[in-house]
């Protein structure tokens, strides 16, 4: 290596370091310290933290709420990811076609992106209110009896999932829309000449070409399924009996309501492990089918 190579090395790090310092300070360092703290007890007032080994993890394994919340979160992921991606593709296809009132439709799909979830959650809560809420007013008109969507453990989580899909799909649509516009028109014309049906064309041409976008979007969707808990605060507070509680919400509760930071760290470690597992699974599943650069 010559002196020039040495200088390049220095330059590279000069460019990199500001970002890396912040990244390490707010991602790698806290992740490591979280793990560290999960082996200690929570300091309270005059009682300092002490090393407790795996005690927090034993508590975790025996914590029925944790297992329930974990199950909820997996169901939440399963409910939000495929649905929001599928709806996003559908939206993009519609908005990309020559539709009457396309401008309005596109705006409608996109509005959830600019409305803060914490605020619209109140509106959704009204929709779900039994008796005089919007959904019950509509179903009541057709003679159905009222249903307590958020107050019934069998529907609370699903009601929350619907709101998350509503929030996300329009945002993902933008990515698909951009990708669709790069697909050459000639492909479509050629397919039409060969008499290929619309569904056939989508399955054999459009969808494979959208695969990189799908990878990108679904990574985002996975992350959101563990991150998006704002509406829980307003709509259910995790209830009834934790039926709609999610991991991040439980971490918040443990840390900032119960003030049990050590156990919150333990929960965070569990969440991180879960995220890694999902990411690896997703990578193995999708990577082979993506023609990335």
């Amino acid at each position, binding site marked *: 290596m010559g002196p020039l190579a040495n200088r390049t090395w220095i330059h590279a790090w000069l460019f990199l370091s500001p970002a890396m310092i912040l990244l390490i300070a707010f991602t790698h360092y806290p992740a490591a310290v979280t793990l560290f703290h999960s082996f200690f007890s929570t300091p309270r007032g005059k009682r300092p933290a002490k090393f407790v080994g795996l005690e927090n993890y034993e508590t975790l394994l025996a914590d029925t709420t944790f297992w329930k919340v974990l199950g909820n979160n997996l169901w939440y992921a399963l409910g939000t990811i495929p649905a929001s991606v599928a709806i996003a593709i559908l939206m993009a296809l519609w908005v990309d076609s020559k539709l009457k009132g396309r401008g309005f439709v596109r705006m409608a799909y996109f509005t959830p992106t600019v409305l803060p979830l914490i605020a619209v959650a109140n509106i959704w*809560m009204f929709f779900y209110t*039994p008796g005089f809420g919007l959904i019950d007013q509509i179903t009541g008109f057709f003679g159905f*009896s009222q249903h307590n969507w958020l*107050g019934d453990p069998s529907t609370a989580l699903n009601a929350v999932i619907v709101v998350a899909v509503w929030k996300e799909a329009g945002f993902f649509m933008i990515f698909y829309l951009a990708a669709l516009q790069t697909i050459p028109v000639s492909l479509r014309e050629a397919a039409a000449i060969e008499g290929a049906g619309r569904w056939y064309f989508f399955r054999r041409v459009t969808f494979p070409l959208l695969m990189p976008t799908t990878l990108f979007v679904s990574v985002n969707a996975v992350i959101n399924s563990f991150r998006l808990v704002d509406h829980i605060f307003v709509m259910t507070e995790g209830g009834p*009996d934790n039926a709609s509680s999610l991991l991040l919400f439980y971490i918040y509760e443990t840390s900032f309501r119960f003030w049990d930071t050590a156990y919150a760290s333990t929960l965070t470690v569990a969440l991180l492990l879960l995220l890694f597992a999902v990411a690896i699974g997703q990578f193995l599943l999708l990577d082979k089918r993506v023609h990335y650069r």
Partner: protein
Amino acid sequence: MHFTKKLGIGAVAAAMSLSMAGAAQAVDLQFYFPVAVGGKAADTIEALTKEYAAAHPDVKIDAVYAGSYQNTITKALTAVKGGQAPQLSVILAVDMFTLIEEDAIVPFDDLIKTDADKEWLKAFYPAFMENSQTGGKTYGIPFQRSTPVMYWNKDAFKKAGLDPNTPPATWEELVEFGKKLTVKDASGKVTQWGVRIPSSGFPYWLFQGLSTQNDVILANSDGNKTNFADPKVIEALQYLVDLSAKHEVMAPGIIEWGATPKAFFEGESAIMWTTTGNLTNVRANAPFEFGVAMLPANKRRGAPTGGGNFYIFKDSTDEQKAASLDFIKWISAPTQAAKWSIATGYVAPRPDAWETPEMKAYVADFPPALVARDQLQYAVAELSTYQNQRITTIFNDGLEAAITGKMSPEEAMNDAQQKADKILKDYR
């Protein structure tokens, strides 16, 4: 851009007292309060604060609206841990043990010097003081206190053939009236429920009304032992569950607290249980004649108290603590307490506040305001323990599991008691 650190007022004051030692200077106080804005409550707090400041030019009070009760305790503890504690705050009475455990507050006994001050502590209703005292010391001064009461729709009573001026007085009557008040349309769909006892978020509070009426206390005054599995508690829970499951006079599932006043206004329910803090709201918005009554009795009458107390934080200078005490004494004095009570519907926390001319004129004009006060003689301390938020969450989860039919009341309460024991055993 305002990126510089917003220094805690306390730190500023401390710095000032160092640099200007000896010179007369203003005492700065930061004061967190938790009332829902939009009503008169926030305006009243601010007006009272200004009035005090005008009379005491040497004290500056920065009144910070901190959100719901939940937000306020979170904010206050966060600030304490960050070394930026406020000097005083109104926080839920039940958070006393949490604040003690976090070493955040000082007992009033440490600040009180004169006999007059000691008398002052005795001026409040004993029912309220129960949640202010532990271990022989007083940590909180009742201010924004409430108790649940029963509101009923007189029009609906008339339509159901009931006397619009006689609310249900017992558990049996609540069911009996509820059945008459539950209206179904031709297809069997309920258009009006008889009773609404909301159960979202913090079901334990209204439930404590039922458990008290069944003559059982949920936790001891040391805050380290709960009674969730007591047969009387289970019986009370069974009654609550039966209201919708057996008698079908209440909507099934978890009933939203926040939507409850609206549901009452809309005629979705003919009777609702909620806080007296909603009195002003109901008076302003109910499109029909309504009545306010004490909760019905079973073995006895009963209700929990609720709402917030004043606390003084440890991390302040002696001048600040003295000034905070003085402010609290002033704002909880009869005239101010009466003003506050009239503006919000919260219960003025001391008997002499009800003797002021303003208050007398108010209750003469609006007698329902007296119901909460009269109920106080039957009221007990609100459920409060060490690790309070966690214990109440466990209890809430159990109540919710029973209400939604996931567990029997017995199972749910045994489960909750077991979990609570596991946590509280460290405090015995």
